[in-house]
């Protein structure tokens, strides 16, 4: 099966900043992204868990966007505007996709 090169951007970000990130992604020209829940974590600010949480203030999600390689740089810049003020980790890796028209 023929595959095409693409870039996988994974953004760990706190829930309250998700709306701003979504707006930014929509503007940055990505064709799509998916939001995965994160249950718990550990970082420099200590451990946290989603269990029992009633406030949306805590908690993180993982936003995954597979984008065409040539667009990755622009998306990253755009994402970073939002993430820089917030707890979050942006990682990028290479991947291959089956349907290039979908990224």
């Amino acid at each position, binding site marked *: 099966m023929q595959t095409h090169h693409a870039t996988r951007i994974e953004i760990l970000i706190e829930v309250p*900043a998700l709306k701003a990130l979504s707006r930014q992604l929509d503007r940055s020209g990505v064709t799509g992204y998916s939001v995965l829940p994160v249950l718990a974590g550990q970082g420099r600010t*200590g451990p946290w868990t989603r269990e*029992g*949480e009633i406030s949306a203030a805590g908690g993180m999600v993982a936003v995954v966007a597979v984008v065409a390689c040539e667009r990755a740089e622009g998306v990253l810049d755009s994402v970073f505007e939002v993430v820089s003020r*917030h*707890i979050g980790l942006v990682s990028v890796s290479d991947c291959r996709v089956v349907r290039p028209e979908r990224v």
Partner: protein
Amino acid sequence: MLDLALQNLASPIVLSFVLGLVAAGLRSDLSIPEAMAKGLSIYLLFAIGYKGGVEVAAAGFDMRLALALVVGVLLSAVIPVLAFFLLRVMTRLSRVDAAAVAGHYGSISIVTFVAASSLLQSQGVDFEGWLVAVAAVMEAPAIATALWLARGRSAGVASPGVPWREVLLNGSIVLLLGAFLIGWVTGPSGMAEVEGFLVVPFKGVLCLFLLDMGLVAGRNLLRSRKVLSAGPVLFALLMPLLGAGLGLIAGLLLGLSVGGVALLATLAASASYIAVPAAMRVALPEADPAVYLTLALGVTFPFNLAFGISIYLLAAQTFGG
């Protein structure tokens, strides 16, 4: 006095909170699934809003409601200023942190309100049902004050586009006011249809919710032990008393019943741990959540639950009625 406090302390509601605290302190893995915790809170907001509306329908519209809404907005907007100056004097928190904390104390905790109404009910003290609408409008104004306080004279902190729509239309405000209106429209006959759900199990559901709050507050305290110094903790014990004082005066001026005065004092005394933290993460991400969450949820909430609401009721009985 002691009698009332003891009776309150030995209620299933307070003891459930204590159970949560203890379980967290012992590092038990007891936990409430997030979806269940959110479900319980949706139930409580819907039930409390609905009941308030039904009472308005039963008692007839009361012009003081309109006035009380205005007073509620003012209290919410003004209390943070007081809190902010106290914090700057009593603690070494940065301007931004102090502003964020101050915002929490202007806003309200609906569970504290519910616990207080529970206490009133068990003491046979009546109150104005529409105070729940006042609670709803007190959620947001404090946030504006907090942001204004954070900005200060300098331009050090960028003023990001605060998502006012999100803040004003946040889920808990919409649900509380919406249920209030539904209760108002459907009145006692609507209540007859749904009281098997909204009234009969209410107190028990509140126990489970407070168990969860105890767990969350306890874990929060464990994590933030190091962040807490005496200054902020003292503030978190003093501020509810000052807030309650303002609420009490406002309630007396509005001519509320004794129960109503106690509830308005409780609202003014309580600190938000749902709506305001979320807004602060968006609008003031520089402020440290460990500080404001721990003070609001870990210190002030338990204080109000265990002692505050009894004190405010006694004060209302002394000065009101």
